[in-house]
């Protein structure tokens, strides 16, 4: 089960910083922390996409990474594909004030932002490992 692939779906939102953190944390997991076990989809494509994307939650246990309480990723997954297995909620972990702050571009990212990304990516990994160990 250790190599069980898990779907990680970031909200990638532009409404607030939480969306940016969700996006960067998912990328960190996918590129660095669990590169061979992470399957992701681009959420805008997922929503606009065809049947092959619609099987995502049926083929993989999905962890939705939400920037804020709107839970766009969970809503989209449950509307188009199936139940999400777990949720990482940036607002719940880092606080609503942080999650709802203004979104930032790549060149405005500070060390503090990077630390936030690390916290969320660790949380994603913990949930992935829990799924793998189940």
């Amino acid at each position, binding site marked *: 089960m250790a190599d069980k692939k898990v779907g990680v779906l970031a909200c990638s939102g532009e409404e607030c910083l939480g969306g940016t953190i969700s996006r960067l944390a998912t*990328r960190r997991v996918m590129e660095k922390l669990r590169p061979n076990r992470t399957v992701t989809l681009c959420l805008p494509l997922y929503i606009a996409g065809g049947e092959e994307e619609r099987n995502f939650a049926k083929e993989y246990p999905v962890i939705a990474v939400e920037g804020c309480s709107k839970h*766009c990723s969970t*809503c989209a997954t449950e509307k188009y594909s199936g139940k999400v297995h777990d949720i990482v909620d940036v607002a719940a972990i880092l606080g609503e004030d942080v999650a709802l702050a203004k979104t930032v571009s790549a060149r405005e990212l500070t060390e503090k932002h990077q630390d936030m990304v690390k916290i969320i990516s660790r949380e994603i990994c913990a949930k992935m490992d829990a799924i793998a160990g189940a």
Partner: protein
Amino acid sequence: MGKTYAVLPCNGLDKCAGCVTREIALQLSAKTDNEIICPVFYRVAEARYNRLAQEKPLLVIDGCATRCASKLAAEKRLKITERLNVSDYAKEENVTLGAGLSLDADALGLVRRAVTKLLNDSEKDNARQMSEVDDFFPSSLDYEIYKKDKFIFRLPTNEGFYFNENDVWAYVSGNRARVGVTDYVQKSLSDIMFFTPPAIGAEIVQFDELGVMESGKAIWEIISPVSGVVTAINEKLINAPEMLNQNPYEQGWVAEIDLTDFDEDSDLLHVFDGYMSILKRKVDEYRVKD
């Protein structure tokens, strides 16, 4: 930057180009009063952005050929004022975007140039709009001719003309198109006696009917080459449909349309060379039947 946009990036997360769209949108909004529409949240909560998308000119930034942002705009029936496809722009700039999602120096350079370009284009656009009334359509057209027996078929060679296989042309500039029929139609119908225009404000999907023409020989539906909203009709044709016979490319134009998704429409259209071959074949077959 005089003009401010509502910016709709695709915000993709599976290709570097998607990450570039996001970065361009953020840098544009940091430099000016542009406001970003989140493509995901827009689908979930339409009301959040509807007013913004209707009040401000819309800039759509797609990452790749899937064009998720353009498709979203078309789905919401938004009028696109400006668009940028990052993959195409990267090719123009000779930049190879990396396989990873991190923005390297080349990608960040591309972002910087795209932002500068869009800001400059916007300034030029403002100046153009100040002077623009009917500069939209070329003041004179260049034609190439195909002659068969005594019949002469003209086809405009100017850039911006597109044709469907139903013998209808669209001249496209920015987000606007003028539509009419080709010489093949008016010569096949012979003397056109009646013209029924489409309704102004009608929402047309590519290949929908865009008015009807009638001659002594036949009734002929004009099949729209583009999707969009009809903004003007050539009212002169109602009382003088013979203008369609005289010159269907200039004074005999049919309607003007604000385009909703020309990128997608263009997949099913021909430019001059492609349609000229079709025209020749049709003319040859038509004469053989005679």
